[in-house]
């Protein structure tokens, strides 16, 4: 028997970046917000001994406990889906701040092209550039409409950068803080890419170049370049994260209450409204119903989609008929790149998660695709994130992977190896989707989310083309041996690739092809909002958090407006 609690204005499922932004904005507007967080409380004081590669990077101390909940995976519909039993391809977060605690901080605005990708592709290359199997669609919002929200997120985060990217969308104001320090390794990349006719610029960073106070009065410290960002929390409070920005902002209002160890298992619905959520206190096992005027799903891509599916809200996508919107347009990324072995030693162990330089010349539609067998591209970067010794054992081609020769080569090359890497965009395909697993359940008896995904020809062609370009850059940088990334075949969930999963709860201009409108309000229930990278109709050649942050600020505006006036916001 579930205990029914007092009704609140807003309940969010998860308290990371999106939950924090919704809570901060709504609580400032006087609404009573409850955040349900399945993980634990944590803050900067928990990260004083975080320089521990084994505990945090190898054993995933800050990540989701997969014994409680995971996903199942198959490459295609004829394969039996099996649980992702160990963390691998992507790193799901858990606890206050979510994945926003252990991110690297590379923070982009998607390109104007991304938001209108279908119309712009058709216009420039005709309707048959990609086959009908690719479910390309516009996002129902333009870059210009989203710009004020990008601006707001960047000011909250105190982003460090320089406005030198000729391909970026127009900015209403400069980056809040200057770019990070340009290291000798980055300068090598800058010189090489300039020589090749590209335009390098400093990567927009949420590891701040200097101390900063954001418009909400929250302080973020200056980065120390200690080299422990991704998979780690920041002991200095120098990496922008929800628990040092939006969450304290929300708490200061007195209108925000976080309940930890609260795992939501269902969104309650009555007619065309949601009424609240059911959650389990994971410490006592007790069930609660939290009624709310507005429910906001602010957990990760996978869990947002799963909660809608188990609650029977919206129509499940069916790959046979291509009908239904929930679970469709799941996309990931491909990572073309090249490794270079150098003679000289470099300070590769120093760095920061978003210390880097980038070129956008081969991203989006910034180059002509008329004679190419793919669309879009990727941002190509040299990042200096701080390489760590367990995970980084670079060996030249044809070196054995263990034994005497391995030991010598991996030790010698540790400080003499660089990577040019790319975040390659991924287009939605009719066979790539999310649904509910019929067999496997989580620790609370709720079905696991099932992922059906494989790389497509578009991915393979893009990967091959960009890999060649990155090899040329590495050669120009002066590497004595260049090792291009291997061609991609089937998607493999085992090796870590990127935590940039998108789609499944996509936004759009019409309920026919999307789950939420451009305020992220659910088409089937006015008082339900779904926020996160699940809203992306395809995946771009960048890290997603900047665009997620902008969408969350827009959703917050929508929620406040809905709370006053009700009804559909579009």
């Amino acid at each position, binding site marked *: 028997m579930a205990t029914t609690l007092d009704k609140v204005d807003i309940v969010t499922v998860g308290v990371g970046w999106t939950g924090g932004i919704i809570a901060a904005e709504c609580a400032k507007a006087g609404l009573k917000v409850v955040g349900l967080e399945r993980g634990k409380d944590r803050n900067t004081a928990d990260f004083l001994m975080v320089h*521990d590669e084994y505990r945090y990077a190898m054993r995933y101390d800050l990540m989701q406990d997969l014994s409680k909940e995971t996903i199942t995976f198959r490459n295609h519909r004829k394969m039996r889906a099996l649980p992702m039993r160990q963390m691998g391809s992507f790193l799901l977060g858990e606890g206050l701040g979510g994945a926003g605690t252990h991110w690297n901080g590379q923070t982009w605005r998607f390109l104007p092209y991304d938001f209108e990708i279908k119309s712009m592709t058709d216009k420039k290359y005709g309707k048959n550039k990609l086959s009908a199997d690719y479910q390309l669609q516009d996002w129902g919002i333009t870059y210009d409409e989203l710009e004020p929200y990008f601006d707001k997120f960047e000011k909250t985060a105190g982003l460090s950068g320089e406005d030198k990217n000729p391909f970026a969308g127009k900015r209403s104001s400069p980056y809040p803080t200057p770019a990070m320090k340009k290291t000798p390794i980055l300068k090598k990349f800058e010189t090489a890419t300039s020589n090749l006719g590209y335009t390098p610029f400093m990567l927009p960073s949420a590891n701040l170049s200097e101390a900063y106070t954001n418009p909400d009065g929250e302080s973020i410290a200056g980065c120390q370049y200690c080299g422990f960002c991704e998979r780690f929390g920041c002991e200095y409070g120098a990496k922008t994260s929800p628990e040092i920005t939006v969450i304290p902002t929300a708490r200061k209002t007195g209108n925000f209450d976080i309940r930890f160890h609260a795992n939501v298992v269902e969104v309650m619905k009555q007619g065309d409204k949601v009424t609240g959520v059911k959650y389990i206190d994971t410490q006592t096992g007790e069930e609660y119903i939290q009624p709310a005027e507005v429910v906001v799903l602010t957990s990760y891509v996978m869990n947002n989609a799963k909660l809608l599916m188990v609650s029977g809200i919206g129509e499940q996508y069916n790959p046979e008929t291509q009908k239904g919107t929930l679970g469709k347009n799941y996309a990931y990324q491909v990572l073309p790149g090249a490794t270079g072995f150098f003679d000289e030693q470099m300070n590769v162990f120093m760095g920061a998660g978003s210390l880097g330089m980038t070129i956008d010349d081969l991203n989006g539609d910034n180059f002509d695709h008329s004679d190419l067998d793919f669309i879009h591209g990727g941002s190509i970067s040299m990042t200096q994130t701080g390489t760590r010794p367990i995970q980084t054992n670079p060996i030249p081609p044809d070196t054995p992977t263990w034994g005497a020769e391995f*030991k010598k080569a991996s030790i010698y090359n540790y*400080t003499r190896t660089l990577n040019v890497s790319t975040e390659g965009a991924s287009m939605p395909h009719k066979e790539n989707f999310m649904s509910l697993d019929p067999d496997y359940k989580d620790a609370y008896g709720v079905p696991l989310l099932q992922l059906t995904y494989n790389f497509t020809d578009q991915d393979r062609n893009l990967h091959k083309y960009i890999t060649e370009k990155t090899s040329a850059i590495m050669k120009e940088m002066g590497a004595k041996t260049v090792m291009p990334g291997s061609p991609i075949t089937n998607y493999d969930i085992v090796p870590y690739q990127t935590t940039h999963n998108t789609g499944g709860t996509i936004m759009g201009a019409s309920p026919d092809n999307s789950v939420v409108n451009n305020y992220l309000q659910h088409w089937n229930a006015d008082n339900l909002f779904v926020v996160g990278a699940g809203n992306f109709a395809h995946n771009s050649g960048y890290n997603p958090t900047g665009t997620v942050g902008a969408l969350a600020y827009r959703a917050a505006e929508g929620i406040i407006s809905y709370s006053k006036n009700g009804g559909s916001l579009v």
Partner: protein
Amino acid sequence: MTEDKKGLSRRDFLKTTGIATGALVGGGLIGGLVGYNVKKEGQVAGTGGHKGADGEPVAVNNRGLMFFTNMAEFNVLAQAVERIFPEDDLGPGAIGLGVPYFIDNQLAGNYGSNVKEYMQGPFFAGESTQGYQSRLTRAEIFRQGMVRMDEEAKGRFEKNFVDLEGQQMDEIITAFQKNEVDMKGVSSEFFFKLLRQATLEGAYADPIYNGNVNMDAWRMKEFPGNQMTYIAEIENDQFVKYEPKSLSSMEH
């Protein structure tokens, strides 16, 4: 004299328990098969430099096995990881770095019991792209792996694994790597990957986990460990060498 006695009796102990033939290393201390990494000045690395009553450094063995109960299995582990990461002119190998103890300790904890992994059934082998699908925990896989390595040694060379020549050990490890050895509930290829990965983890993890003794693996690789900041050197064109620091150097 006292030290000699201590050493000899310890060596006798090692012999009689079938652990290994100890060898006398500087200062009269024993550097056993899987024992200590002994620094030139005769201090056992990683034990805090304890001094005896006469002011001489003494070996303090505050390490013990937390998982393995069968020394023969532990010794197979030690020799196998040493082949993966051998001692050479750069510095110690897996044994000198304490990797066998690291792995033993990890197998006794969350890592060995797969505490943070989804271990609910049903279990199916699946495709390689779907990853780990065994009902076995890592601890169970490691124990089976040690037993199978010894059986392979006996089958191929009529000897215990630890008595083989290096080349012969490599042949067996390679057979596991190539998935040519039968194991139950897991492939030998998967076990090999686990073994290799655990070896690197033990070599390069912070010494607080009982591997990377004396931070010697970090020294070889010129990784500085736990430095609080690089802001003063991040723009330096020259390679900067640091004396590495362990997390244990932080004030608690």
